[in-house]
């Protein structure tokens, strides 16, 4: 963690240098000011700190019911994979010749599950899940990966606290360090 911070600092210094050398160019100034309400409506992205997570909550059991109705066909029973990505299992496989990358074995942040499912799934009707349903599906996907137990209730407070098993499995490319 310490080394990460140092790297970020180096990167900031480099960036400031680049900014100060950049040639000032000007445009006609045609951007229309956006109101806070407009911004709030567009801004659906969730970062690893969980900033911008919406109100609502969901349980593992609720998530299982939604999964079986809306996700099962493409991702298989208990997330074992069907026509599309396997979502569970593969723990401990990354350093083997048969690496299996899933939400549980590979993903570094639980917040990404919420962000992605809300924006992109279910594939044929994206954008139709309520925030409660997305919390529930996130809880279910983490549960079938053995990351949370079946009594878990996820919401804006509890989701960012979850430590994913492969959290420290990533390093940043030299390009951005």
């Amino acid at each position, binding site marked *: 963690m310490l080394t990460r911070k140092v790297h970020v600092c180096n990167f900031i210094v480099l960036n400031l240098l680049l900014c100060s050398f950049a040639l000032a160019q000007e445009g006609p100034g045609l*951007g229309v000011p956006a109101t806070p309400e407009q911004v709030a409506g567009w801004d659906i*992205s*969730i970062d690893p700190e969980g900033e911008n997570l919406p109100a609502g909550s969901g349980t593992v059991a609720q998530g299982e019911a939604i999964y079986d109705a809306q996700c099962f066909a493409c991702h298989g029973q208990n997330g074992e994979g069907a*026509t599309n990505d396997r979502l569970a299992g593969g723990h401990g496989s990354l350093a083997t010749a048969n690496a299996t990358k899933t939400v549980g074995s*590979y993903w570094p942040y639980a917040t990404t599950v919420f962000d992605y499912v809300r924006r992109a799934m279910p594939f044929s009707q994206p954008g139709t899940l309520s925030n409660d349903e997305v919390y529930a599906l996130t809880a279910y996907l983490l549960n079938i990966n053995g990351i949370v137990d079946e009594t878990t209730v996820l919401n804006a407070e509890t989701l960012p606290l979850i430590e994913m098993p492969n959290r420290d499995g990533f390093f940043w490319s030299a390009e951005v360090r």
Partner: protein
Amino acid sequence: MSDSDNPVDQIEAVAANGLLHRRAFLKTGTLLTAGATFLTAQAAPPELDAWSKVPGRPPEAYGNRSEYESDVVRLPGFSPPALGAGASRTPHGSLEGMITPGALHFERHHNGIPNINPDEHRLLIHGLVDRPLIFDLESLSRYPLVSRIQFLECSGNSRLLDADQPVDGTAQSIHGLLSCSEWTGVPLSILLDEAGVQTEGMWILAEGADSSLMTRSIPMSKVRDDAIIAIYQNGERLRPGNGYPMRLFLPGWEGNTSVKWLRRIKVTAGPTMTRDETSKYSDLRPDGSARLFSFQMGVKSIITSPSGQQTMRGPGLYQISGLAWTGAGRISRVEVSADGGRTWGEAELPGPVLSKALTRFRMPWRWNGGPALIQSRAYDETGAIQPTRTALISERGTQFNYHNHAIQTWLVSANGEVSNAYS
């Protein structure tokens, strides 16, 4: 004719197995007539061809190519039920020069091609800025535009070279997630300056308007360096499959970061860690660790002619032709081997040689009719050299999935058939 009388045989050889000096075609006027020719007297046309004796079609509103070229098409790949999560590949084995026609530019979508009405599409810039702003296509079109010829390559391109055994593939099926266009657009830094980026704003998040709302985090240094919002491709508005009406374009970086159908840019302090920069587009290494944010595309080249599943028509003179590129800037040198990488000769770069663009290379080759393993190897202006497949795999294993820029080998068999091979 004895060997020494044949002008073809007097051209300087620069590497084993028939590779000739790169300027051989230019230096020897008689060269072409001395090569094998396949036109026969019977096949020669009569005095006037049929099409010369009837009036042709009237002018067309939007041009179509010749009906005789209709088999030059992209190779789409997708599987039910998620038809929109797929790709189509550029037919490099049938193209020449450096520009990819818009209709043949590769595509990679995460949930299909949206049908966007440009009058209703908006771009929001917000986050760590003083003034959140909204733009549309009409307003962007009034900003100072820049045009550049630059390549776009999916970082999953050439992934088939990871396979244990060489796949039976073509320049298109193996390397087709690569194209080059003239991109015209607005420097993103102008728009960000208008919004007023705050000092903590070190990254942006770019979001597409397709139904996957695809998102990637980009460091501000790249935005300041050469990022544009592209609104024209090869002179016309972007193709829907390439981001109509507006896309981010990040020269030299993995294609996925040039977010199509751009609807939102959020200035942030750090990366958002989206699914497409963690679960995907991260490079898994043999020890189980994985690299995030490997953005720049490595120095690379491919031979497009002759290439996989083509057939050579007998021994004689040919021109090896291919493409070289690097995310670091300009290509400085390309070498070709006809003996599996043991000896190399320098290829001609007829130009233009542009920064972060596809660069055409050519090399005369006298094929003697025997088996040959042909390869190309690119160098760039930073001194980087394209690695062998063996070197890349010993460094990264076979499960890194992205950024495969290894030297690739075509085997020319004695019967003239060309196939993908390892050497």
